[in-house]
């Protein structure tokens, strides 16, 4: 019996194949995550939706036709207009001219309500990148260019309808996007800070510290959140300026939000701590700091991103609920929750359903973030089998 026969083994075969394939083996963590994430089609779509929403939040002043506070007493509860693209050019043909149709306004003497009848003869030409109300972009540059607006600024232009003071709901929703989405982001940022530190300590140190932190987390999670939020929100000094209230709300939301992130971080740390590759790194003589930052954290990033993505919608919903109860943000700050206070009125349901537009935005944003988070979570560990 000879042992000389070369052993055709799968291993060498695999290596050959891979050396020729060239790409896969050089794929780093993020490439792997992305490749896996890409398979979740809804998550990819959601990623674009979320990006779009944050884009809107970033460029709110420019994208909104008007300042959120601008009112027009003639147009209280005006229904939404739709954009037409062609107008009769008078010679029987059509020419390209984006426009909206103006209204014939009558006052109903019984209900004291304005009746808006679209009047096709009132063609209001609109344009893109038109000059309008001036504003300070990000509080820095004076600008007056708006992405979309009527060519004649005195003409009515309400793509999403008007509210009870004749304010443009589209502009308000766009500005509300900034507040609501940043509440989510900054709030989660704060949660992340607390959650990472406490969760990290809890998971890495273990023992007594872990037990104490775990009890605290369990306790916080067992407290019904809304009464707690209400109490804390009611505790806010009422003379705080809106911006301060905004940050206080953030802190309140984060006070509870961090537990979920801490749980994820701790869980990962606990399992990582005993993972062979971490022990191997320790036995390489790696310093504790480098061990955590270089060897453990990279395995956490994608989980943390998933946790964040899933936490943001909760923050947004929480803000909405608090504002709805009148204990969150207050006018003149415009957030989706503040806007939704208007829907508490039966008039919104019966006569001005467009006031639910911010609600649709909440649903869309939360939906997109949830799908995104789902996708990221599934893709978070590309090495798992």
């Amino acid at each position, binding site marked *: *019996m*000879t*042992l000389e*026969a*070369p*052993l*055709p*083994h*799968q*291993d060498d075969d*695999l*290596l050959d194949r*891979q*050396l020729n394939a060239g790409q*896969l*083996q*050089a*794929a*780093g*963590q993020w490439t*792997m995550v992305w490749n896996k994430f890409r398979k979740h089609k809804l998550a990819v779509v959601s990623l674009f939706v979320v990006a779009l929403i944050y884009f809107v939040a970033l460029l709110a002043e420019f994208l909104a036709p008007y300042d959120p506070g601008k009112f027009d007493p003639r147009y209280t509860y005006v229904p939404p207009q739709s954009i037409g693209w062609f107008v009769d050019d008078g010679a029987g043909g059509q020419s390209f001219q984006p426009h909206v149709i103006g209204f014939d306004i009558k006052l109903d003497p019984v209900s004291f309500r304005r009746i808006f009848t679209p009047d096709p003869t009132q063609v209001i030409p609109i344009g893109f990148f038109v000059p309008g109300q001036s504003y300070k972009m990000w509080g820095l540059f004076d600008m007056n260019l708006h992405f979309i607006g009527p060519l004649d600024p005195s003409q009515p232009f309400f793509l999403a309808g008007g509210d009870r003071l004749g304010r443009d709901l589209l502009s308000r929703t766009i500005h509300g996007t900034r507040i609501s989405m940043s509440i989510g982001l900054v709030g989660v940022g704060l949660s992340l800070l607390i959650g990472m530190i406490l969760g990290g300590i809890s998971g890495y140190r273990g023992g007594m510290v872990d037990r104490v932190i775990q009890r605290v987390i369990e306790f916080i999670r067992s407290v019904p959140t809304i009464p707690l939020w209400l109490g804390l929100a009611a505790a806010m000094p009422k003379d705080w300026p809106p911006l301060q209230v905004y940050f206080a709300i953030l802190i309140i939301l984060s006070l509870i939000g961090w537990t979920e992130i801490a749980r994820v971080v701790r869980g990962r740390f606990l399992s990582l701590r005993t*993972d*062979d*590759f*971490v*022990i*191997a*790194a*320790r*036995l*390489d*003589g*790696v*310093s504790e700091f*480098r061990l955590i930052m270089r*060897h453990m954290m*990279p*395995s956490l990033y994608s989980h943390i991103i998933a946790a964040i993505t899933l936490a943001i919608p909760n923050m947004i919903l929480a803000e909405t609920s608090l504002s709805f109860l009148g204990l969150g943000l207050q006018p003149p700050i415009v957030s989706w929750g503040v806007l939704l206070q208007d829907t508490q009125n039966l008039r919104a349901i019966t006569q001005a359903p467009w006031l639910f537009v911010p609600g649709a935005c909440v649903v869309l944003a939360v939906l997109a973030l949830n799908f995104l988070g789902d996708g990221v979570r599934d893709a978070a560990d590309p*090495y798992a089998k």
Partner: protein
Amino acid sequence: MIDTATPILRVSNLSVDFPMHKSVLHAVKDVSFDLHRGETLCVVGESGSGKSVTARAILQLVAKPGEITAGSIHLATEAGEVDIVALGNRGSAIRQIRGRRIAMIFQEPMTSLSPVHTIGHQIIETILLHEKISKEEARIRAAALLDRVRIPNPDAALDRYSFEFSGGMRQRAMIAMALSCNPEILIADEPTTALDVTTQAEILSLIRELQRDRGMAVLFITHDMGVVAQIADRVMVMFRGEKVEEANVFDLFARPQQAYTRALLGSVLKLETPAPRPARPMAEKPIAEINDLALHFPLNPGFFGRPTAYLKAIDGVSLTINQGETVGVVGESGSGKTTLGRTLLRVYNPTGGQVHYWRGDGTSVDIASLGKAGMKSLYGEVRMVFQDPHSSLNPRMTIYQIISEPLRTNTDMSEHQMMDRVQELLTRVGLPADIGDRYPHAFSGGQRQRISIARAIAVRPRLIIADEPTSALDVSLRHQVLDLMRDLQSEFGLSYLFISHDISVIRYFCDRVAVMKNGKIVEIGDVAQICERPQHDYTRQLISAVPRPDPRLRADAPA
């Protein structure tokens, strides 16, 4: 008595495909074989050979998205032959076969039984499923079955849960369940792989015994040629989904026809004879001396008061490792051997004893009581190779980053120097030098273990603690890795503490061996002496339980 002329099961041209992302994996390709009553057919092959899929296909248990794409599986019944492939994987026709005519036992006794149902519930359910008898009768039968598989106190055992049993007991219960409806065929899919070697021996003899009693046909799936040699009547060798060779067990071991079979047998047999060793110096110079080392974990730690009991993972171990020597530690699961290895590097802090270590410069330190800084200076000299090459390499770091990490912390090499060094190391462990920018997932288990070894030898260590470095590898790879380690030993004058459950690997690789049980060393001595003339009962039991890859040693071997 038994009709052995006509096969009870005829598998013809069976193919099973798994559609992958962009390609199709042909897990089983055009495989045909017969199974006769009263015989044991061993299907042997390495991981990925398609042996398990073949076994599952017979019961229509191929997991999604796998699919039987061609072939037939004819089962002989009183009413003539039934083609199992045609029955599909749902419906009562196939269910009438599962469990009743063909029963199956699985590799993982730990997870193959439901954790939330009693053993009795699961066995009785099977009986009631296929036979119209009362619950009481079924219970009596189940108790008898447990008794038959030698589970003590069978009636009480019926009411216990699987997690209350040891692995061997669970596998016995599994077998009892499989036998509950007197199946004609028993498919055993690596039933002993997860078990300790002594338990494996018991289970193997149990299966053999039951088969004789009942005249069952057994289809036994395994990767272990030792097991094959011990239990097979006929052997079918599979490789990458295809049948390579089928023969009588004695013929196969004596005259393998195919190159693959020869290579496979060769790599198994190679381990049977100890590797050539470098000559030992006359005067042994210790590199590490373990003295009465202990590691006790407190059980039920309360907030207050002292724990009432301790888990004695290491219970007073003394062992000396000499320079250039390979000391093996062998033991079954739970014996404390892995813990011992890790405690030597202070992954766990010992609760008693000393570990004297003589450094390269001749000074000696006590690892057991060394401070953080002291330990840090040792990490370059004492290295570790882990069992699982999948989990011991950080999937998020490149091969270069992984291998250079110890260089970074233990030397002051420049990045450029490290790059050169890593290439040199890769070449040394038999890998291409240009793979530094790749990630571990691009490599197979054997390759990863080489990378692990490259990392271990990166800083010119003196002592390497190798914790089962070959047990996750296929048999054909084991001696390659061991030979590499051997070469490195002579090249760098390394000492090894080699931990393994596999006595054959120990015998192949080690100079001396310590046998551990329950945290204690029961016997220690020269490898040859321990393997040939074990003194301690336990050692004897351990060694005799190892199935030797030689069917001629069997009682029923033809003269």
